[in-house]
C-alpha cells in the first residue's frame, strides 16, 4: 500500500433492507388504510377503490398527506400503523 487514501463523502450509514411482510392470505377482518398523497385526483382514485374493497366486506380507513411535495409526517405513519394492517398509497395526476 502506498498510503494513498480518500475520505468517505457519504453518510457512512448502511441501509438495512427489511423483508416485506407477506400479504395476508385472507382479507377477512383486516383494515385497509387508503393513503392519498394529495396529488390532484388522488381522492377520485380512492373514491373509486374504496367501495370495491368495502364490497368485499373489508373495513377501510382514509388518510391524506398534507402535501405530495414532502414526506408523510410521522404522525400519519404512526396512525396508519396503529389502525390498519394493509395500506394502499395512491399516486395520481
Amino acid at each position, binding site marked *: 500500500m502506498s498510503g494513498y*487514501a*480518500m475520505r*468517505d*463523502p457519504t453518510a*457512512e450509514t448502511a441501509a438495512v433492507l427489511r423483508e416485506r411482510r407477506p400479504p395476508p392470505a385472507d382479507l377477512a377482518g383486516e383494515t385497509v388504510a387508503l393513503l392519498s398523497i394529495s396529488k390532484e385526483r388522488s381522492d377520485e382514485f380512492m373514491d373509486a377503490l374504496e367501495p370495491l374493497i368495502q364490497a368485499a366486506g373489508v373495513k377501510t380507513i382514509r388518510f391524506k398527506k398534507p402535501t405530495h*411535495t*414532502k414526506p408523510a409526517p410521522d404522525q400519519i405513519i404512526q396512525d396508519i400503523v396503529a389502525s390498519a394492517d394493509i395500506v394502499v398509497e395512491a399516486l395520481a395526476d
Partner: protein
Amino acid sequence: MRFVAVIKEDCPTCKLAVPALAEMRAAGLELEIVTQDEPAFPRGLAPRHDADLLESHRLKIEIVPTVILYDPTGAEQSRTYGWNKADWRAITGLSSLGESLPENQPGCGALNLTPGIAEKLALASGDLKLHARSIPVADDADPIEVAYDRGWTDGLPIVPPTDLRVARMLAGTKRRPDETIGLIPPNLVACTVEKAAINAVMAGCRPEYLPMLIGAIEAALQPEFAMHGLLCTLAFSGPMIIGNGPVTRRIGMNSGGNALGQGNRANATIGRAFQLIIRNVGGGRPGEIDRAVLGQPGKYTFCFAEDESDPDWVPLSVARGVAPGESAVTMFHADGVTGFVDQKSRDPETLCQSLAMQLWSVSHPRLARWGNAVLVLAPNHYQIFKDGGWGRAEIEAGLHRALKRPAAGLLEGAGHPLGITPAQAEAYSDADGMVDKFHPGGLLIVRAGGPGGLMSAVIGGWTGGRNNAEVRPVTRKLEEI
C-alpha cells in the same frame, strides 16, 4: 529564562540578526536556535533543524526571525519578530545588543505558512482532525475508478478527496469541520462542514467557493424549498443556484457570456458539489428515490451569477429582501433552459407581449399557476427596457399585465382535455375573468449573459410549484463570505 529563535537562511533579516543571536549566546543566555530551511544555518551557533516544520507550526510562527521568551515555568512570556533593535534589547535585557545593526528591518514570511504547507502541518500536528472514514486505495488501483465503484460520482470523474485536499478546502470557511449544516434529504442525514468539503473537493471546487456552497445547502434545506420533493419528482427539475453580491465577483463566477453554459469553474463546480452532497450524504440517487422520467443536464450542475454591473438594476437578491451589497444565494427548482429569441421588438411593451408568449409555455400553455419560472434577461433585451426607462419594477408590472389570459379559454375540456379546473378558474380569476400565469412572486427576473444577440432565456420551474404554499424559491443572505 529561556529563549527560542526561529529563523531561515532564505531571509535577509534573519541573516542580519545572526550577530545579535551570537551576542545572546556570548552573554550566557539560554538560547535555542531553530532553523526552518538550511540545517547548518547559522554556522557555529548549533542550530536545530525543524525539518518537518512541526515545531514552527506548534509555536505559531508567522514571521522570521521570531524570538520567544519563556519564563522559568516554561510558559511563553513574550515574543518579537523581524529585527527591531529596541524590541530585541527589551526582550533579552541586553542594553547594547546589535549595536552595529540598523534600528529596524521587517522579517520574512515563515516557511510553515507557505501556501499548501499550513494545512499539511495542521493535519500532521493533529490540530485538524478529519472524522470521515478513511478509505485506503491499493497501490495498483486508480482512485477515480475506486470512486466510481463506490457509487460516489454523478457519472463524471471526481477529484479524489485526499486528506490534504479536504484540509485545504476546509481553509475556505471559518466554520468548524464538525459543525452540522443541516439534515440532507432523502435520508435526513446530518451534513457536517467536513462532508460538504469532501464533496466540494470531489466536484472540483476551490476553497473560496465553500461559503457559497454552504449557503446553498442552508437555503435548500428551508422547508419551503421542499428539497425532498424536488429530488424524488418524476418531473425534470433539479436545484439551481443563483449567486448575487460581491462574493460572486470575488470567486470569479460567470454572469456574462455563456453564463448558463460550460467553462467557468465556480459555476460548474458549486452546482455539482451541491448535487454530490444530495447524492452522497443524503442518499438521493437516480433510479432510486430520484424518479425523474427524463431529467435534464442541469442536474449535473446548474449555477450562475447575476450581472449586477448596471447600478440602475435592482438585483434579484435585493428584490427578494436581501440588503444591497450583501452576498446571497437563491435556490430555484429548475427545469431546463428554453431559448427566447426576439429580434423584432423594439419597445418595452412589445417585448413584454413577446416574452409573455414564451412564458405561457412553462409547464404547459394551458396551465396557470402550475410552476414558477426564471426569466434570464440578456443585455440586449435588457437595453430595450432600459432605453424605455423601465427598471425591475416596471418590467415585473409589464409582464404581469401581459401574462393574463381569459380563464374561460383555459378551462379543461374547452377545446382540449388539458386545462385549468373550474375550481382553479374560480379561485384564480380576477373581476374581468382573467387569470395570471404565475403565482404572486412566482416569476423571478435575473440579468445575465453576454452582448450581441436579442435573446433571453426562460427557465421553467418544477410542477410542485403549483402548491405555492408548500413550494417556493428561497433566497438567503450568505452569512460568511
